[in-house]
């Protein structure tokens, strides 16, 4: 049964956020007997609240608090007030995610040394490597039930996948199959198997997709050592004169300001809210923001190179039927600078329902040509191109100079100027996807440049040297021993893979470290 902690109880670990990072960390800590209070800005809903309705679910659990976008990136033009498409509810973006659960490749942890000096980029090696991560990837995959790993069968191939794979074969690609998915292919861990509803990102109505909402969080609560406080947005992290954090100030569901004391604070609000909170928590000790002696808090924001190619065929595809993103071509994920860029990209299925497709296919276009594409909806296939983008110091989350949220705190601005490497990769990826679909008879392809970012990374990055980043190899602040970052903000590079599996693996690893440090009374 859920715990109830006193606000003056300074023995608890306070975890900010309940998604892939925070939700996992809470459960991992609590299974080791460590008590935690999870403060989640969003509300708590249950699986029964999910509907197969794209717009209703977008409205129900998207993070819609004011944000701005600036810089030359496409998203700043197309959705300047909604630069990221992530979730605000208990479970965080694990309710919304597509569930592609891929490991990073070895070289992606070592971009500083493997990619060499690249002008205009701020590359750095992670202070850990694939070997360090492998045992934790194993545990994350077992926890999440990732198909294609540990003997868990893969999902079946959908119509949409058949089209992608036929094109991949014509292209001479060899690494294509249904993706490693954190979606049950068979009943497992008390959850049902995938029924191919096609509404993964609206919240899985069968609970076949792993989400902390109905796995980690109830398990943590069942120990009696975790309390989840929903609709509780943290505004400020408090510190003492030595610079140690002592607790957090948050707004409760009624907007009243409360204070929760803490032995340790772990921030997992995603790569936009996490640096925003640290920057909003400046003090005498940290005048430029909490844990920001390096000046790197908020910098090196990464969101992956992305684009989508939709192809119109003569015959039906019905891309909306079946597990949304279960199909991948991995041949282009390799490091091969012959292509004119460093890093690589994945090609992953991206279906859309008719309303979303019709609304987003060609931004702001009208008339017969656009209508023709929509008329051919049933004959359309779509692939999402997602690859590594490079850290840049000037791509960053900052506090808006004028605009404030309802609590009077500056809202975040997300500034991105695409690096030439990102644009070269984007051009290559779109060209390959075009060729893939045309090789099997596509009449026409349509290029959809990036949607608002669902992968947000890098804004409190790990570094060996405290000068270069915000946290160490455990996600622990270089400056403040009892402050941790537990989400994708830690990423030193973005890799060419969807980030969630790595976030979960890092949270498992971090929980071990915290438990060990607490046992020595080191923190």
């Amino acid at each position: 049964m859920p715990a109830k902690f006193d606000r003056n109880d300074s023995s608890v670990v306070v975890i900010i956020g309940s998604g892939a990072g925070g939700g996992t960390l809470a459960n991992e800590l609590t299974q080791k007997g460590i008590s935690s209070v999870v403060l989640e800005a969003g509300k708590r809903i249950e699986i029964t609240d999910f509907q197969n309705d794209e717009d209703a679910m977008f409205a129900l659990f998207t993070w819609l608090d004011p944000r701005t976008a600036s810089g030359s990136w496409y998203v700043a033009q197309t959705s300047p007030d909604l630069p990221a498409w992530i979730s605000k509810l208990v479970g965080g973006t694990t309710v919304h995610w597509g569930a592609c659960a891929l490991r990073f490749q070895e070289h992606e942890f070592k971009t500083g040394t493997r990619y060499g000096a690249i002008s205009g980029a701020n590359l750095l090696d992670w202070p850990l490597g694939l070997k360090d991560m492998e045992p934790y990837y194993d545990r994350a995959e077992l926890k999440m039930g990732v198909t294609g790993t540990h003997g868990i069968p893969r999902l079946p191939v959908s119509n949409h996948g058949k089209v992608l794979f036929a094109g991949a074969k014509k292209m001479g690609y060899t690494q294509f199959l249904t993706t490693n998915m954190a979606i049950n292919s068979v009943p497992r861990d008390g959850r049902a198997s995938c029924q191919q509803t096609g509404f993964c990102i609206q919240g899985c109505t069968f609970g076949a997709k792993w989400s902390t909402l109905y796995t980690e969080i109830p398990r943590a609560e069942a120990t009696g050592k975790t309390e989840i406080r929903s609709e509780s947005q943290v505004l400020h992290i408090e510190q003492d004169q030595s610079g140690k954090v002592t607790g957090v100030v948050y707004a409760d569901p009624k907007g009243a300001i409360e204070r929760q004391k803490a032995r340790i604070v772990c921030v997992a609000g995603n790569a936009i809210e996490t640096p925003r909170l640290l920057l909003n928590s400046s003090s005498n000790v940290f005048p430029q923001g909490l844990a920001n002696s390096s000046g790197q808090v908020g910098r090196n924001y990464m969101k992956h190179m992305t684009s989508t190619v939709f192809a119109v065929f003569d015959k039906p595809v019905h891309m909306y039927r079946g597990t949304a993103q279960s199909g991948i071509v991995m041949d282009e994920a390799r490091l091969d600078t012959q292509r004119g860029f460093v890093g690589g990209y994945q090609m992953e299925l991206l279906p859309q329902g008719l309303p979303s497709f019709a609304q987003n296919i060609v931004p702001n276009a009208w008339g017969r040509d656009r209508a023709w594409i929509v008329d051919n909806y049933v004959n359309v296939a779509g692939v999402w191109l997602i690859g590594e983008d490079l850290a840049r110091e000037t791509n960053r989350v900052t506090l808006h100079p004028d605009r404030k949220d309802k609590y009077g705190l500056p809202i975040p601005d997300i500034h991105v100027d695409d690096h030439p490497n990102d644009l070269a990769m984007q051009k290559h990826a779109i060209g390959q996807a075009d060729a893939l679909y045309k090789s099997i008879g596509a009449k026409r392809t349509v290029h959809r440049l990036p949607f608002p970012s669902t992968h947000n990374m890098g804004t409190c990055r790990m570094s060996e040297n405290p000068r270069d980043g915000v946290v160490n190899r455990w996600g622990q602040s270089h400056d403040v021993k009892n402050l941790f970052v537990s989400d994708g903000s830690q990423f030193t590079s973005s890799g060419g893979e969807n980030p969630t599996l790595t976030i979960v693996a890092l949270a498992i690893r971090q929980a071990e470290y915290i438990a060990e440090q607490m046992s020595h009374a080191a923190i």
Partner: protein
Amino acid sequence: MKVFNWTRRFSRRGFLARGAATVAAVAATSGKVLADAQDARTVGPGGLKPEQARTLVVFTRDLFPHDQLDDSFYQRAVKPLEDEAAQDGSTKQILALGVAWLDTKAVSVAGRPYAQVGEESKRVAVVTRLKQDPSAPRAFFDKVYSTTIVSLYNQPELWPKFGYEGPSSAKGGYLSRGFNDLNWL
């Protein structure tokens, strides 16, 4: 380049939620569709005039021209604009000015108000000018476009016209309903 604004899409959620309820109710009693659409044109004092609403219907069809859709779909797509105009003077003014602009240009191009111009190509020429002419009321285009692109395609009754089968969970997903039935490759 001016492009579709996600923010506008969600800022309208309040009335969209109501609009969705209306659409669902209409879907349940499809015989009432036309009657409801006609009722919409007689919303309280301060709302749009019937001929203004009619112009919006034709304009919306020109933005998203699907020959398989009869006018009732476009009438329901325009309904949120009518409702908002009935409650909000600034919206009403944006729409009234825009309709007047369309009519003025249509008269100069084709000799009659926009909704009465029979040739699509001539109406398209007017819309093209609306997008290109720096003195044209862009707020009108943006308002109608960003509203109706949602309210048109969100009508569940419309989905079968595009072959979209929509919600599947209540039917057990697509697991036994064709998720892997493609055989033309």
